[in-house]
């Protein structure tokens, strides 16, 4: 009985996966969010000398007004703006990409056939809900794997910290990554092997990993959560 129930739930989950992957809107938002993240990654470039901003480039053009500004202020300002934008866009993307997954199951002509099987309405709803969660969960696992790859072989000991930190930890890393993406790819003052360096590398990978709508959503949710730590540079000790 339990096996049958699990098999039916598994079939519903697999079907939700197939349906989400077959949707053009899903891939459309995937493309949009990728472009968006690349934009944040590449649009702004900040050169830092001795803790101060030496030069800021936007779309490759010099922005001289930023010279001598404290790096923390720049990061906070940029990150704040980006976070608000991503929260809105992420929410929009995720809602539109996954909104139709459950209602389509209850369309006339489809629900009658599903209900003719030995499954109840609540079971159908549960199966599809779990399926939608599984799609999101896969994104999370994928992004974890990407960030682990980004740690490099010499820093494997941090892996436990990443997984142990759980979702909140990942969200923090994404937000830090966004700070780095927004500030530019290079922090000249970092030292090789520095934990901050490792975190920045991992975070940079996370920017790519966060391309899919649901990852973007999680990222945006964290960015908009009001946690003050999100607006600071890496809290490296948190991951030890």
């Amino acid at each position, binding site marked *: 009985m339990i096996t049958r129930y699990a*098999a039916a739930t598994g079939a519903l989950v697999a079907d939700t996966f197939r349906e989400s992957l077959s949707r053009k809107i899903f891939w459309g938002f995937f493309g949009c969010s990728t472009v968006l993240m690349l934009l944040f990654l590449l649009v702004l470039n900040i050169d830092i000398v001795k803790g101060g901003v030496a030069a800021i480039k936007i779309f490759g053009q010099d922005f001289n007004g930023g010279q001598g500004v404290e790096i923390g202020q720049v990061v906070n300002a940029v990150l704040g703006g980006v976070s608000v934008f991503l929260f809105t866009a992420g929410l929009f993307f995720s809602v539109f990409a996954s909104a139709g997954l459950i209602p*389509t199951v209850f369309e*006339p002509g489809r629900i009658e*056939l599903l209900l*003719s099987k*030995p499954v109840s309405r609540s079971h159908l709803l549960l199966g599809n809900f779990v399926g939608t969660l599984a799609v999101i969960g896969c994104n999370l696992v994928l992004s974890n794997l990407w960030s682990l790859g980004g740690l490099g072989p010499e820093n494997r000991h941090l892996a436990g910290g990443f997984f142990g930190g759980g979702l909140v930890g990942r969200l923090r890393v994404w937000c830090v990554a966004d700070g780095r993406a927004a500030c530019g790819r290079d922090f000249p003052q970092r030292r090789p092997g520095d934990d901050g360096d490792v975190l920045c590398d991992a975070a940079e990978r996370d920017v790519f990993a966060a391309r899919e709508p649901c990852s973007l959503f999680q990222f945006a949710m964290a960015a908009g959560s009001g946690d003050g730590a999100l607006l600071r540079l890496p809290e490296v000790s948190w991951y030890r």
Partner: protein
Amino acid sequence: MSPAQPVIQTEGLTKHFRRFYTRRVVQAVNGLSLSVEPGTAFGLLGPNGSGKTTFIKMLLSSIVPTAGTAHLFGKDCRNPEARRQVGYLPENHRFPTYNTGRQMLHFYAALSGSSRDERVTRAGELLERVGLADWADVRIGKYSKGMLQRLGLAQALMHRPLLLMLDEPGDGVDPVGRRMIRDLLQELQQQGTTIFLNSHLLAEVELFCDDVAIIQRGELALTGRLDQLTAGSGYQLSSPDAAEGAFNELREKTASIASNNGMVRLQFADREALNEGIDILRNHGSQIEEVQRQRSTLEDVFMRTIEESKEER
């Protein structure tokens, strides 16, 4: 289920819909009591909007009855387990187009509780049987209406159901496909599967069903064995060379005599009159081509029932 227990049994099954704006009540099904015995082929007939599909949906718990009870294999139809042995092909089905034919069969069979090994074997068999083996791994979105109908039938058979409920199975299928479906259903019936057929194609029902029920405006207008319902009350004899001399004697025995292209057709009211007529013809050295019992077609029975039902109202 005990051997004598009906596969489908309903008692006073009723469904009333209330229109949202006008608050007018539509009586889709009104106190329908029906019983379908195991192993039979049962045809449910009725004009458009008579409540056939609503009745089936109530049996499968897609919609909740306003009143009355329905049992499948002795279990309350609201219990999902009652539907484990049911295969269903809906009328206006919408199969998810992102699946291939094979994936779809696997999906619905998994919901019915079939094991993976069984699904693999059965999907191959059935796709071959319904003529879709070459299309098994093509997305359903590319299938024609007839192919979808055949795939739907395969889907209904994946878990080897004891009761097969088909809502307009011949809809959109060409004559060859329809013949294939009929042969498949006959084969299943011989194996003991109960078949519940809802169709507008009276000729199909007549060829295939043992029992029929006709519903009109949600109420049962007629039910019974098909051969009894269509049985007429006389016999027809055909003779190619009936002797002139025999006609005088035959006129006393026959209900009517007609001649067409040299073939004389004689109508007899009962078996006794028929046998006497045969004796007279043989005594005059006439040949007998054919003797057949007079029958009504299912269409005649259907039209008569519907007309009577209207008059009663």
